């Protein structure tokens, strides 16, 4: 058997969720004390439980609300269907939330898994090249400026009960839905944080993320009271600077002499 075939056979034996492959003894040496089938089973167990451990380390709150037994059942079926595509084992859970959805898990628990995945992504994201301070604003050119967001910042729309469950309020999962809310997830120095946003701030952040100018970003605040809209826009943008969400403020045109 060629190397490629031997490796493919080994990988199938190590990652099969359906018990040992036939003909193992033909390709692998065993002993009376430990037959080849049992030797390959060591790799098979190691494969599934290593990946299950990686899922548990990322989806701790999801595991708590599902319970150990359901988490293991769903985790093992996930790993069998979605093998890892990343050299770092912790990234195996990229599609875990959608797997839970397709397995019929309730919407707030699926969203809890989405939140935990976003938090992992924020944790491992690269450091921003810089963090802009409010001093970076040139008031003359402010309306035409755009912002670059830090790599860890993500926007999610989640069932509000998922946020409560993340903080240990599992009873919220039994309550009636109060709808979805916009959530920002980011890393500030070492700590990953998340926060729900009101609808207008959510819309403004989406606009900034798409590369809109700050004048367009601020145009979402349109209550009919210009002075109130300016105050609101100032409050929201100040919050973005304060939370370290902005890597830089970009002015397309060169400054005038």
């Amino acid at each position, binding site marked *: 058997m060629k190397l490629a075939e031997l490796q493919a056979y080994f990988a199938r034996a190590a*990652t099969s969720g359906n018990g040992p492959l036939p003909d193992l003894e033909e390709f692998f040496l065993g002993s009376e004390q430990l037959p080849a089938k049992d030797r390959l089973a060591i790799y098979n167990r190691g494969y599934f439980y290593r990946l299950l451990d990686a899922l548990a380390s990322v989806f701790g709150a999801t595991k708590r609300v599902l319970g150990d037994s359901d988490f293991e059942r769903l985790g093992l079926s996930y790993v069998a269907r979605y093998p890892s595509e990343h*050299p770092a084992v912790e990234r195996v859970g990229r599609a875990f939330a959608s797997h839970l959805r397709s397995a019929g898990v309730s919407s707030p628990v699926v969203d809890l898994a989405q939140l935990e995945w976003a938090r992992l992504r924020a944790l491992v994201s690269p450091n921003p090249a810089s963090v802009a301070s409010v001093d970076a604003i040139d008031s003359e050119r402010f309306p035409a400026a755009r912002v670059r967001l830090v790599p860890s910042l993500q926007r999610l729309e989640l069932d509000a009960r998922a946020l409560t469950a993340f903080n240990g309020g599992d009873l919220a999962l039994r309550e009636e839905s109060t709808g979805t809310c916009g959530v920002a997830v980011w890393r500030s120095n070492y700590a990953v944080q998340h926060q729900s946003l009101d609808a207008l701030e959510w819309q403004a952040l989406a606009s900034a993320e798409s590369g809109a100018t700050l004048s367009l970003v601020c145009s979402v605040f349109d209550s009919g009271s210009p002075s109130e809209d300016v105050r609101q826009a100032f409050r929201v943008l100040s919050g973005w600077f304060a939370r370290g969400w902005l890597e830089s403020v970009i002015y397309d045109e060169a400054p005038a002499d």
Partner: protein
Amino acid sequence: MRRAADQEPALNEPSLAEAGLDGAARVGFGLRVPHYDAILGRGLRADFAEAISENFLGRGGRAFSVLSRVRSDMPVALHGVSLSIGGMDPLSESYLAELSELAKRIGAFSVSDHLSFGTFGGHYGHDLWPLPYTEEALSHVVERVQQVQDRLGRRLLLENVSSYVQYRASALTEWEFLTEVVTRADAGLLLDLNNVFVNAVNHGFSASQYLRALPKERVQQIHLAGHSDAGGYLLDDHGSAVSAAVWRMYEESLELFGALPTIVEWDERLPELSVLEAEADQARALSNRRLSAEVEGKP
């Protein structure tokens, strides 16, 4: 098989002297997440440290701060688990680019990975699966090691892995295969003594014969770790102190290869940092004893 000398890349890894790791016993251990707070708080009591490459590739935040903090105090070796040097999937260019960037950024004194495979059809097994010891596998691995060394511009160290099964197709012993790979590819050898011991028990060969067959000039680093008795076989779980048998092998390796940079690994049931430091102290004491004997001209 190896390219002519004038075509060779500059394998410009720092020498042990440049890294400050020659002339004295040099012992350290691997950076593990549960120890990060202690490391950021009080630093690390070691001569050098080993970082799992995949835990730092492309990452910022606390992980990189820990690595930077440690690097400001001591040399750092990068040790990978996902290169899959023996695999059939093409080597990942993005992985190698990130590894190269990280090695340069922190001035890693060595870059190592395992003589095994762990990728299949574009996926990662996150395990160190054994290779068949055949001429075909040998040629395949040697070519890929050379590719990696060309890409990184430095010598790669390859670690022998623990295993629980052997292929019927193998035509060479494990130590013959290892020797041929590092010699033909002009690579270094990171000798994991616990893995040799585990395999010796699991497959029924002499650990001492294995050590004595290795090319002395290629052995550049040593790994020590614990294993457990799983009933019928030894499991390389890195979940306990180094066993007495492996300490005896360490003494034998000191006689054979001299006092080399040594890492104590511990992954499962991770104890306090002080426990690892005590294990490292034991390795340092044995290394120092060997160095003293060399100075006194004793065999």
